[in-house]
């Protein structure tokens, strides 16, 4: 089989690998593999560690080899690197994580892992972790004790609170926290007295959450990764699932084998595109023209689902007018660069192969008009009647393992857990659940007004520091920044971020790794680093993208001196004097027990925290997922069907005796009512073909009952299967219950609790029980989805050019929004910046877009510290088209400077490839640790720098924020590339 034959006396070097390398003109990313057998010529001769050192000198153990005496335990956990929720069995011996086995039983991933998932055991080594609390003294990090760190920090926080008010501290929380920690984080900052908190969802899917929730009710993926197996066609627009959600491709490629069509729409020919039946290249930021271009053909050919639109959708006529008037094929081609025939083919494929689904990710969300783009996708799916249908839906892939959960119950600046908002009623609801006095919380805030005013966003905290004080909508500028499980290099405008980091009085980084925050600023003091435990070092629940909630067991004890986030929160609460409120201890009652662990610190009991979440989060059905039910699911994963996620036979959990029959895996929210009501969870949202007690539903009545004289409720006959009310109906409250004559069905105790309440605030769950169980009705009502969202800046989605556009002609035609004065407490600019930079493309002619690599996650501090992953991607790079490279005299794999309109320049390797079209460049966003050409190694704490460091793309990114959610515009900006 050796194709290159050996001739006598001559050994040919043409191995398979080197043949390939020579044959391919441009070098692929793996060619960056250094010191490995991959590099042609260099052969397989490694110049690193001798093999005898293969067995890792383990910081926490005597080595991973199985000793005869050790007790072996299997701990079931979930990968922490994306939202698919891949289960992992960790083999633990004598407290050391010695092996990792696939969990074939998991219905979500069937044992499969990408590079990140296959590497999670490395967390048990953690050689590059932040090992103990540290403090910056004279520009160097010094080790300090936990007690010193906590008491100094408490003193500083309280002093700031006193001198500048509670809003002077910004708390960046995390989507890496489990649900319980994320929830406690929101509770903690509330008790500190501020809404200045946020997490990664702001910069990943905030526009989706807002756009989708305002269209039909809930801000989440409607179906599931698994359900894509039931699709007959899938269109990925702005999603590179093969790299960002690799295991989701198992379901998609399976679907493809059984006949589904796959379409990828993207500015890049991604690895996902390589698997597609049709690839369409659009100009970055032109999603609305493309989607409306599709709708043009759909309306033109009568492919829309007319009955569905009549019964279940409001305002499609307005969309139709806009589409037919503005987005004829010529206008579409001008804006997004796609010829009519291609757009037509996509529309036809989606229409002729129903149910069809749409997948989107950051490619749609990260724009100044992200909220409008995602709604255009929703509108497409509504027009095709694809929402609320198995195999259809909008499959919005979230990024972090618990970004959905942190969005649902975590630290959001504009809402208390469960999207309750910040109104007085919401506060009173949660005060009751928390077992604290409402007035006490109010007293912690600067004022009632500040208590009910959304805080700043993580994308803009730097402006909270740098903006003129008279222009911000709070008393003091930000004086302290706390990065609690969040990287800095995922946010834009690096130059200004560095300045903000140097301006604040105090920086606190609480994280398993020091992160780039520790190294970025040039400071001499005022920085504290606290080592947090990873999710493998604590137990808790996390919500996958499909809303399934999985319980992680604690795999190992926290390494080194690290502590779990919720223990650190409790410690702060205690030192700040609100420990009792934090755990709901009052009147002889205590919601959350606290235990002292062997390492000497106190920790709130995670199960109790989940029970408190269950007790309060009625809006989105986080109430039925008791720890007991979740744990039973984790122990019996094989009971659930891969295609439907449902358990359809009697399966009794041995430990609890719980019968899973009827449940969907992980009780995907909404799982309404009390755990005792045994709602099975909702696999696909808004699905009228099922009874509400079987996971069925309909669109939510959340926007009133009529608009401009037109009813917003669903038409007669359109309702979830078996509902007693066969017309549209509003959400349930005590008045409606009484009107319907159902009030008597509540027990006496329920009646007492539900009096004066609605289904969201009735802590007994009685209203929900009677509506759902007795009458098959949906507690949130039965209404139409909104194609027109009148409370958004553009009720009908309107294409607007990015702030930094390569097309001055189109800026004139499709200008950005007007500037705004106080938006999330900050002045926010649109038109003025766009106008000023209208001709900037003369100097910076290339579109700069960013995205993920399969090996790394997010800011990458964790994954770039993992040698098994770091070896695979050792340098940051810019993808540039051969034409653009040639005209700039750039050769492949050489250093280049990427220059930005902000004046920033970053040094990365060139990767010449047709993956990007001429005029577009791409840089992955996981890198940090270099600053405009210089390695910051010396600025990290000793031994805690990531193995791979590189230039962060966001050092070079520009201004621009979504007009609803403050999402940053990273997917379209401009740059110039020159040889270094």
């Amino acid at each position, binding site marked *: *089989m050796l*194709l*290159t034959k050996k001739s006598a006396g001559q*050994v*040919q*070097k043409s*191995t*398979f*690998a*080197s043949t*390939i390398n020579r044959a*391919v003109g441009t070098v692929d*990313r793996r060619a960056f593999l250094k010191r*490995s*057998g*991959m590099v042609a010529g260099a*052969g*397989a*001769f*490694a*110049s*690193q*560690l*001798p*093999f*005898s050192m*293969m*067995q*890792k000198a383990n910081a926490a153990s005597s080595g*991973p*080899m199985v000793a005869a005496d050790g007790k072996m335990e299997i701990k079931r956990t979930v990968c922490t690197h994306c939202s698919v929720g891949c289960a992992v069995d960790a083999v633990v011996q004598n407290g050391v994580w010695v092996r990792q086995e*696939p969990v074939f039983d998991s219905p979500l991933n*069937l*044992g*499969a*892992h990408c*590079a990140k*998932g*296959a*590497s999670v055991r*490395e967390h048990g080594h953690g050689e590059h972790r932040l090992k103990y609390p540290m403090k910056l003294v004279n520009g160097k990090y010094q080790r300090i004790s936990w007690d010193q760190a906590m008491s100094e920090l408490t003193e500083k926080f309280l002093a700031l609170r006193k001198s500048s008010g509670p809003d002077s501290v910004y708390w960046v929380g995390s989507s890496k926290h489990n649900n319980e920690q994320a929830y406690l984080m929101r509770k903690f900052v509330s008790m500190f007295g501020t809404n200045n908190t946020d997490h990664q969802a702001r910069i990943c899917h905030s526009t989706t959450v807002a756009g989708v929730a305002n269209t039909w009710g809930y801000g989440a993926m409607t179906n599931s990764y698994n359900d894509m197996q039931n699709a007959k066609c899938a269109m990925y627009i702005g999603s590179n699932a*093969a*790299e960002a959600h*690799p*295991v989701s*491709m198992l379901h998609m*490629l399976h679907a493809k084998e059984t006949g589904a069509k796959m379409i990828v729409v993207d500015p890049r*020919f991604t*690895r996902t595109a*390589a698997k*597609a*039946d*049709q*690839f369409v290249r659009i100009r970055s930021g032109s999603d609305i023209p493309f989607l409306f271009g599709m709708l043009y053909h759909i309306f033109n050919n009568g492919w829309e689902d007319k009955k569905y639109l009549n019964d279940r959708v409001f305002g499609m006529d307005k969309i139709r007018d806009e589409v037919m008037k503005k987005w004829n094929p010529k206008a579409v081609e001008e804006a997004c660069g796609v010829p009519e025939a291609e757009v037509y083919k996509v529309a036809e494929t989606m229409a002729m192969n129903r149910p069809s689904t749409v997948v989107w990710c950051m490619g749609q969300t990260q724009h100044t008009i992200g909220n409008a783009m995602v709604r255009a996708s929703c509108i497409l799916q509504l027009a095709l009647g694809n929402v609320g249908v198995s195999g259809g839906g909008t499959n919005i892939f979230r990024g972090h393992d618990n970004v959905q959960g942190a969005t649902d119950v975590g630290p959001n600046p504009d809402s208390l857990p469960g999207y309750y908002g910040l109104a007085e009623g919401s506060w009173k609801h949660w005060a009751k659940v928390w077992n604290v006095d409402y007035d006490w919380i109010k007293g912690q805030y600067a004022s009632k007004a500040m208590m009910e005013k959304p805080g700043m966003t993580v994308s803009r905290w730097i402006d909270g520091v740098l903006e003129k004080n008279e222009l911000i909508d709070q008393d003091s500028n930000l004086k302290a920044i706390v990065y609690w499980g969040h990287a800095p290099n995922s946010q834009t405008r690096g130059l200004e971020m560095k300045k903000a980091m140097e301006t604040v009085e105090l920086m606190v980084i609480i994280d398993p790794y020091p992160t780039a925050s520790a190294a970025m600023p040039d400071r001499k003091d005022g920085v504290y680093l606290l080592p947090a435990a990873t999710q493998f070092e604590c137990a808790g629940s996390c919500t996958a993208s499909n809303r399934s909630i999985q319980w992680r067991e604690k795999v190992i004890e926290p390494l080194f001196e690290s502590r779990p986030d919720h223990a650190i929160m409790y410690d702060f609460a205690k030192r700040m004097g609100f420990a009792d409120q934090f755990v709901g201890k009052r009147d002889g009652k205590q919601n959350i027990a606290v235990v002292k662990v062997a390492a000497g610190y106190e920790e709130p009991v995670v199960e109790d925290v989940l029970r408190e979440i269950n007790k309060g989060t009625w809006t989105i059905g986080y109430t039925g997922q008791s720890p007991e039910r979740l744990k039973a699911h984790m122990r019996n994963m094989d009971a659930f069907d891969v295609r439907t996620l449902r358990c359809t036979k009697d399966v009794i959990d041995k430990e609890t005796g719980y019968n899973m029959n009827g449940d969907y895996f992980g009780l995907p929210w909404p799982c309404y009512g009390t755990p005792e009501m045994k709602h099975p969870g909702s696999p696909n949202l808004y699905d009228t073909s099922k009874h509400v007690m079987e996971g069925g539903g309909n669109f939510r009545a959340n926007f009133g009952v009529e608009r401009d004289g037109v009813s917003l409720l669903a038409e007669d006959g359109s309702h979830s299967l078996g509902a007693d009310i066969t017309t549209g109906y509003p959400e349930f409250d005590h008045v409606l219950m009484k009107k319907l004559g159902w009030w008597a069905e509540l027990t006496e105790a329920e009646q007492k609790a539900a009096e004066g309440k609605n289904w969201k605030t009735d802590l007994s769950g009685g209203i929900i029980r009677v509506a759902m169980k007795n009458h098959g009705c949906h507690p949130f009502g039965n209404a139409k989805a909104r194609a027109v969202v009148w409370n958004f800046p553009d009720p009908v989605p309107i294409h607007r050019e990015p702030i930094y556009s390569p097309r001055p002609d189109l800026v004139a035609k499709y200008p950005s929004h007007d500037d705004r004065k106080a938006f999330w407490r900050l002045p926010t600019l649109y038109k003025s910046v766009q106008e000023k930079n209208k001709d900037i493309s003369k100097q910076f002619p290339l579109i700069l877009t960013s995205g993920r690599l*399969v*090996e790394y996650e997010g800011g990458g501090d964790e994954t770039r510290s993992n040698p098994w992953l770091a*070896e*695979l991607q050792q340098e940051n790079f810019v993808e540039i088209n051969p034409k653009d490279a040639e005209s700039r005299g750039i050769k492949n794999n050489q250093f280049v400077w990427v220059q930005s309109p902000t004046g920033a320049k970053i040094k990365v390797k060139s990767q010449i490839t*047709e*993956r990007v079209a001429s005029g577009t460049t791409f840089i992955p966003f996981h890198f940090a640790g270099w600053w405009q050409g210089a390695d910051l190694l010396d600025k990290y704490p000793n031994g805690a720098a990531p193995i791979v460091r590189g230039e962060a793309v966001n050092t070079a990114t520009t201004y621009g924020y979504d007009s609803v959610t403050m999402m940053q515009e990273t997917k379209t900006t401009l740059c110039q590339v020159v040889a270094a």
Partner: protein
Amino acid sequence: MARMKFICDAERCIECNGCATACKNEHEVPWGVNRRRLITVNDGKPGERSMSVACMHCSDAPCMAVCPVDCFYKTEEGVVLHDKDLCIGCGYCFYACPFGAPQFPQAGAFGLRGKMDKCTFCAGGPEENHSKAEFTKYGRNRIAEGKLPACAEMCSTKALLAGDGAVIESIYKTRVQRRGKGDEIWGWAMAYKRGDAVAAGVKS
């Protein structure tokens, strides 16, 4: 009689490196030694396909044929293994191997080639099963545990299949039949009509 084989289904492989990382994890393979790696053709262009490559455990293994110290052996199941105690690190096997499978870690102060290392099909080597010596020299012995190679078991899209040739062939066949295509990747059409047959599926 089981005959151990790998197949990589290029229609499914998404070059996620799960296999390469699973291998690193299971055997604690050091930096610079890559028992398994990904090869991509037409990177960034229509027709892009990836394949995971490691030792293919050849029926007629060229490494065995050229080894001057005869350190290679083949198990009953067709897995090609070698004795590191015997290996002299000469590198002949590397030159003979069509897949670039043999890897040579550096040994000693002068950067000399160490003893050859390669994929063992997770079958360990000629030391007592599950002993420290076996793990240190060859990695874990999953086969003796009744498990399959970690790379294939963890493959993100189940592109990489490992196990008894007959079993994995039948899994692969099911997919090809389901797709009603996929053969062409491997067939003469692709070889003689260049990438057109492949590109037929992906138009830009």
